[in-house]
């Protein structure tokens, strides 16, 4: 009598457990593991975010995005959703992140026009990273006709807020493509913007 033939009489055999080809149970387990890492601080942020707190929405977006490494598409889509909620409330850092997600097509469908829109909103609020990215988009003509003056202006604004390095190099690179008049115009725009920005405190979002 082989072991196999004896196992056929195993009680309970008429109620076989699911042989889940679609991995349904495993998915539940993975999701449960995620819930587990969502400890109390997570829930606290979550609640605040749901109540409409822009900072919490931004934080919560990062909790999904991680460091944009090894997350699933679903995670990134959730991240984009929370960044958007915060962005729509004028949260500059969230606007910058949302712009990046559109730029690279992470969690959303790649869309340069949308990326440019959110970078601009964050840039006029003085977000240096967004200013930098906006400059690059103008320089490369992504989602907007190529415009060295705008590229120079935004890169220049970003460079001023950073320690010398990458950002300055960008300005130099752009300047090499420009006539002296264009550079002067770009510098004037940057200066004007800077003066205006310090005068009227960060409600230029609506102008953009």
């Amino acid at each position: 009598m082989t072991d196999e033939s004896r196992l056929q009489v195993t009680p309970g055999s008429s109620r076989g457990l699911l042989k889940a080809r679609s991995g349904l149970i495993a998915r539940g387990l993975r999701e449960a593991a995620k819930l587990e890492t969502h400890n109390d601080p997570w829930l606290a942020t979550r609640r605040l975010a749901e109540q409409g707190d822009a900072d919490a929405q931004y934080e919560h977006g990062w909790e999904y995005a991680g460091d944009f490494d090894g997350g699933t598409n679903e995670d990134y889509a959730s991240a984009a959703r929370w960044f958007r909620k915060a962005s729509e409330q004028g949260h500059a850092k969230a606007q910058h992140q949302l712009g990046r997600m559109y730029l690279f097509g992470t969690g959303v469908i790649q869309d340069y026009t949308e990326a440019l829109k959110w970078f601009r909103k964050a840039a006029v609020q003085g977000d240096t990273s967004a200013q930098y990215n906006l400059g690059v988009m103008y320089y490369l003509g992504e989602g907007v006709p190529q415009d060295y003056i705008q590229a120079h202006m935004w890169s220049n604004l970003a460079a001023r807020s950073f320690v010398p390095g990458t950002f300055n190099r960008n300005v130099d690179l752009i300047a090499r493509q420009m006539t002296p008049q264009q550079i002067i115009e770009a510098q004037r725009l940057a200066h004007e913007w800077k003066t205006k920005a310090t005068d009227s405190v960060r409600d230029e979002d609506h102008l953009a």
Partner: protein
Amino acid sequence: MPDQITRRLKPEEEELRRKREELAAIRATLAERELELIDFRGQLAAFEGRYLRQVGTLYAELDDWKARIAELQAKADPSSAANARAEEAREQARQTYEDAHGTSSETHDFTPSPELRRLYREVAKRIHPDFATDPADRERRTRFMAEANRAYEGGDSEALRRILDEFHDGADAVEGEGIGAELIRIIRQISLAKERVAAIERELAALREGEIALLKKQAEEKEQEGRDLLAELATAVREKIEVARREYEALVQEGKTA
């Protein structure tokens, strides 16, 4: 009590008596283990049914949205890679739907009554195929046992009683069987029963390590904290559905403007 005469058993009779006792004991153990196994499987199946209804159906919905998105993308960009992705996503959605809505999802919680468990234990003790005297008897016992399993899972104690009534075992001895033959038969039955007990242990261990048991264990731990794991999972999946739905709608809009 000087008049009391105890006839001394011959050595083989003594051995037979001991083996009969051992067989009786292992029958009780085996019945207990079979009961444990069928109960555990029942609990897992019930939990699985609950999971499939509460969470699995939502995964089916999510996968359907994902398939729709992939199909739209393939329509907009009919490359062979996009088409393959769309087909794959649709197939996944189909499988998830089948699993989530299949027969396993119809298993409901079931708490066997003490009387039902007693009857099953009795059936297992008397009818278990491992106590068969010959192949024909074994086949008959296997049929009865399978029927008893169904009756137990259906909570049908009347059916279990009927099975016990209908099953006439050849008692513990087979007619015309000599002591030596009976001894050999019993030793064989004991060994089969021991093997079966070991097999049950292995099966229980395998079940305990299985995915559904792990999920069930986590659900029980959450319950201790006053939380509802399945409800939390359902919420998480609903959120994903919402994201997928919006993405789909965005794609539709894009298709219109493009």
